[in-house]
Protein backbone atom coordinates (compact mmCIF):
# COMPACT_ATOMS: atom_id res chain seq x y z
CA UNK A 1 0.00 0.00 0.00
CA UNK A 2 1.15 3.55 -0.68
CA UNK A 3 2.29 5.22 2.51
CA UNK A 4 4.58 7.65 4.24
CA UNK A 5 6.20 6.41 7.44
CA UNK A 6 7.98 8.34 10.15
CA UNK A 7 9.31 5.61 12.44
CA UNK A 8 10.07 7.88 15.38
CA UNK A 9 7.06 9.36 17.14
CA UNK A 10 9.12 11.27 19.68
CA UNK A 11 12.80 12.29 19.74
CA UNK A 12 14.71 14.16 22.43
CA UNK A 13 18.09 15.75 21.73
CA UNK A 14 20.30 18.11 23.67
CA UNK A 15 20.73 21.66 22.46
CA UNK A 16 23.76 21.82 20.16
CA UNK A 17 23.58 18.14 19.26
CA UNK A 18 22.95 16.89 15.75
CA UNK A 19 19.54 15.73 14.61
CA UNK A 20 18.23 13.23 12.10
CA UNK A 21 14.53 12.57 11.56
CA UNK A 22 13.64 9.58 9.44
CA UNK A 23 11.08 9.33 6.65
CA UNK A 24 10.34 6.38 4.38
CA UNK A 25 7.82 6.23 1.57
CA UNK A 26 6.23 3.44 -0.36
CA UNK A 27 5.23 4.49 -3.88
CA UNK A 28 5.85 2.94 -7.29
CA UNK A 29 7.31 6.10 -8.78
CA UNK A 30 9.36 8.52 -6.70
CA UNK A 31 6.95 11.13 -5.40
CA UNK A 32 7.68 14.76 -4.72
CA UNK A 33 9.05 14.92 -1.16
CA UNK A 34 8.62 17.54 1.54
CA UNK A 35 9.38 18.31 5.15
CA UNK A 36 7.12 20.61 7.14
CA UNK A 37 7.42 21.95 10.69
CA UNK A 38 4.52 22.81 12.97
CA UNK A 39 5.11 24.81 16.14
CA UNK A 40 2.43 24.87 18.84
CA UNK A 41 -0.54 26.94 17.70
CA UNK A 42 1.06 27.60 14.35
CA UNK A 43 0.31 26.47 10.85
CA UNK A 44 2.57 24.21 8.85
CA UNK A 45 5.72 25.76 7.44
CA UNK A 46 7.65 24.26 4.56
CA UNK A 47 11.28 23.49 5.46
CA UNK A 48 12.42 22.00 2.16
CA UNK A 49 11.32 20.00 -0.86
CA UNK A 50 12.74 17.56 -3.40
CA UNK A 51 11.49 17.13 -6.93
CA UNK A 52 14.55 15.86 -8.81
CA UNK A 53 18.27 16.48 -9.29
CA UNK A 54 20.76 16.85 -6.47
CA UNK A 55 19.83 14.40 -3.75
CA UNK A 56 21.00 16.68 -0.93
CA UNK A 57 18.51 19.47 -0.45
CA UNK A 58 19.07 22.60 1.62
CA UNK A 59 16.17 24.23 3.41
CA UNK A 60 15.39 27.04 5.78
CA UNK A 61 16.53 27.31 9.41
CA UNK A 62 19.71 25.32 8.73
CA UNK A 63 17.93 22.08 7.82
CA UNK A 64 18.88 19.73 5.03
CA UNK A 65 17.51 16.45 3.73
CA UNK A 66 18.96 13.62 1.68
CA UNK A 67 16.97 11.61 -0.84
CA UNK A 68 18.05 7.97 -1.16
CA UNK A 69 16.20 6.17 -3.90
CA UNK A 70 17.60 2.74 -2.95
CA UNK A 71 16.20 3.09 0.56
CA UNK A 72 13.01 5.01 -0.35
CA UNK A 73 14.02 7.51 2.29
CA UNK A 74 14.12 11.25 2.72
CA UNK A 75 15.71 11.94 6.10
CA UNK A 76 15.88 15.40 7.62
CA UNK A 77 19.07 16.57 9.32
CA UNK A 78 20.46 19.50 11.24
CA UNK A 79 24.08 19.71 12.50
CA UNK A 80 23.31 21.66 15.67
CA UNK A 81 19.85 21.90 17.20
CA UNK A 82 18.58 25.08 18.86
CA UNK A 83 15.92 25.18 21.59
CA UNK A 84 13.60 26.95 19.14
CA UNK A 85 13.61 23.85 16.92
CA UNK A 86 11.33 22.04 19.37
CA UNK A 87 8.20 21.34 17.32
CA UNK A 88 6.34 18.70 15.34
CA UNK A 89 7.94 17.65 12.06
CA UNK A 90 6.03 16.10 9.19
CA UNK A 91 7.31 14.33 6.13
CA UNK A 92 4.90 14.56 3.20
CA UNK A 93 4.66 13.45 -0.41
CA UNK A 94 2.78 14.40 -3.54
CA UNK A 95 2.40 11.22 -5.62
CA UNK A 96 3.92 11.53 -9.06
CA UNK A 97 1.05 9.73 -10.77
CA UNK A 98 -2.36 11.35 -10.88
CA UNK A 99 -0.76 14.42 -9.44
CA UNK A 100 -3.36 16.88 -8.16
CA UNK A 101 -1.01 18.50 -5.69
CA UNK A 102 -2.60 16.61 -2.79
CA UNK A 103 -0.16 16.23 0.12
CA UNK A 104 -0.02 12.92 1.97
CA UNK A 105 1.56 13.26 5.39
CA UNK A 106 3.36 10.92 7.72
CA UNK A 107 2.19 10.79 11.33
CA UNK A 108 4.80 13.22 12.51
CA UNK A 109 7.79 13.26 14.87
CA UNK A 110 7.76 15.40 17.98
CA UNK A 111 11.14 16.94 18.71
CA UNK A 112 12.01 17.90 22.26
CA UNK A 113 15.21 19.86 22.91
CA UNK A 114 16.95 19.58 26.28
CA UNK A 115 18.91 22.58 27.56
Amino acid at each position, binding site marked *: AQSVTQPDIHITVSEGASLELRCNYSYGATPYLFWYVQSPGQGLQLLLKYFSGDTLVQGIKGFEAEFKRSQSSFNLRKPSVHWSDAAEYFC*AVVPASGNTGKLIFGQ*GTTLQVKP
Partner: protein
Amino acid sequence: EAGVAQSPRYKIIEKRQSVAFWCNPISGHATLYWYQQILGQGPKLLIQFQNNGVVDDSQLPKDRFSAERLKGVDSTLKIQPAKLEDSAVYLCASSPIAGGTYNEQFFGPGTRLTVL
Protein backbone atom coordinates in the same frame (compact mmCIF):
# COMPACT_ATOMS: atom_id res chain seq x y z
CA GLU B 1 1.71 39.56 1.28
CA ALA B 2 -1.06 38.40 3.59
CA GLY B 3 -1.14 34.72 4.42
CA VAL B 4 -4.02 32.27 4.57
CA ALA B 5 -6.63 33.47 7.05
CA GLN B 6 -8.89 31.16 9.04
CA SER B 7 -11.62 31.76 11.57
CA PRO B 8 -12.51 31.01 14.22
CA ARG B 9 -9.24 29.85 15.78
CA TYR B 10 -11.01 27.77 18.41
CA LYS B 11 -14.48 26.29 18.67
CA ILE B 12 -16.11 24.13 21.31
CA ILE B 13 -19.47 22.51 20.57
CA GLU B 14 -21.54 19.62 21.78
CA LYS B 15 -22.09 16.55 19.67
CA ARG B 16 -24.94 16.76 17.18
CA GLN B 17 -24.48 20.53 16.90
CA SER B 18 -23.43 22.25 13.69
CA VAL B 19 -20.28 24.25 13.07
CA ALA B 20 -18.74 26.18 10.20
CA PHE B 21 -15.18 27.22 9.47
CA TRP B 22 -14.05 29.96 7.13
CA CYS B 23 -10.90 30.28 5.05
CA ASN B 24 -9.58 33.13 2.95
CA PRO B 25 -6.65 32.01 0.76
CA ILE B 26 -3.75 34.06 -0.45
CA SER B 27 -4.89 36.49 -3.12
CA GLY B 28 -4.67 35.01 -6.60
CA HIS B 29 -4.29 31.41 -5.47
CA ALA B 30 -6.52 29.19 -7.59
CA THR B 31 -6.26 26.05 -5.47
CA LEU B 32 -7.66 25.69 -1.97
CA TYR B 33 -7.34 22.68 0.34
CA TRP B 34 -9.04 21.68 3.58
CA TYR B 35 -7.13 19.22 5.78
CA GLN B 36 -8.21 17.52 9.01
CA GLN B 37 -5.50 16.92 11.60
CA ILE B 38 -6.49 14.63 14.46
CA LEU B 39 -4.27 14.79 17.55
CA GLY B 40 -1.18 12.67 17.09
CA GLN B 41 -1.65 12.25 13.34
CA GLY B 42 -0.57 14.02 10.20
CA PRO B 43 -3.04 16.16 8.29
CA LYS B 44 -5.42 14.37 5.94
CA LEU B 45 -6.95 16.01 2.89
CA LEU B 46 -10.72 16.44 3.09
CA ILE B 47 -11.40 18.42 -0.06
CA GLN B 48 -9.53 20.29 -2.77
CA PHE B 49 -10.91 23.10 -4.93
CA GLN B 50 -9.53 24.45 -8.17
CA ASN B 51 -11.17 27.87 -8.50
CA ASN B 52 -14.77 27.04 -7.51
CA GLY B 53 -14.75 23.44 -8.75
CA VAL B 54 -14.06 20.34 -6.65
CA VAL B 55 -10.92 18.39 -7.67
CA ASP B 56 -10.87 15.78 -4.90
CA ASP B 57 -13.38 15.11 -2.14
CA SER B 58 -12.80 11.37 -1.87
CA GLN B 59 -12.06 11.51 1.87
CA LEU B 60 -14.80 13.96 2.83
CA PRO B 61 -17.53 12.30 4.98
CA LYS B 62 -20.31 13.63 2.83
CA ASP B 63 -23.09 12.54 5.16
CA ARG B 64 -22.04 15.23 7.62
CA PHE B 65 -19.36 17.43 6.03
CA SER B 66 -19.89 19.94 3.25
CA ALA B 67 -17.72 22.62 1.74
CA GLU B 68 -18.12 25.35 -0.79
CA ARG B 69 -15.96 27.91 -2.48
CA LEU B 70 -18.25 30.46 -3.99
CA LYS B 71 -16.72 32.79 -6.58
CA GLY B 72 -13.46 30.83 -6.36
CA VAL B 73 -12.07 32.86 -3.49
CA ASP B 74 -12.88 32.15 0.16
CA SER B 75 -14.30 28.87 1.37
CA THR B 76 -16.51 27.49 4.12
CA LEU B 77 -16.34 24.00 5.63
CA LYS B 78 -19.40 22.84 7.57
CA ILE B 79 -20.04 19.89 9.86
CA GLN B 80 -23.64 18.94 10.57
CA PRO B 81 -24.15 17.15 12.90
CA ALA B 82 -20.81 16.93 14.67
CA LYS B 83 -19.53 13.73 16.27
CA LEU B 84 -16.95 13.28 19.01
CA GLU B 85 -14.44 11.94 16.47
CA ASP B 86 -14.58 15.23 14.55
CA SER B 87 -12.47 16.85 17.27
CA ALA B 88 -9.40 17.96 15.36
CA VAL B 89 -7.56 20.91 13.88
CA TYR B 90 -8.93 21.95 10.50
CA LEU B 91 -6.25 23.42 8.28
CA CYS B 92 -6.80 25.44 5.16
CA ALA B 93 -4.08 25.78 2.55
CA SER B 94 -3.78 27.46 -0.82
CA SER B 95 -1.45 27.31 -3.80
CA PRO B 96 -1.24 29.17 -7.08
CA ILE B 97 -2.22 26.10 -9.06
CA ALA B 98 -2.18 22.34 -8.55
CA GLY B 99 -0.70 19.40 -10.39
CA GLY B 100 2.05 19.36 -12.98
CA THR B 101 5.13 21.13 -11.68
CA TYR B 102 4.20 21.23 -8.04
CA ASN B 103 3.39 24.55 -6.45
CA GLU B 104 3.98 25.06 -2.74
CA GLN B 105 0.97 25.00 -0.45
CA PHE B 106 0.72 27.76 2.13
CA PHE B 107 -1.12 26.85 5.32
CA GLY B 108 -3.30 28.91 7.61
CA PRO B 109 -3.07 28.70 11.43
CA GLY B 110 -5.98 26.26 11.63
CA THR B 111 -9.22 26.01 13.60
CA ARG B 112 -9.13 23.77 16.64
CA LEU B 113 -12.52 22.06 17.10
CA THR B 114 -13.48 20.31 20.30
CA VAL B 115 -16.68 18.26 20.30
CA LEU B 116 -18.01 17.40 23.76
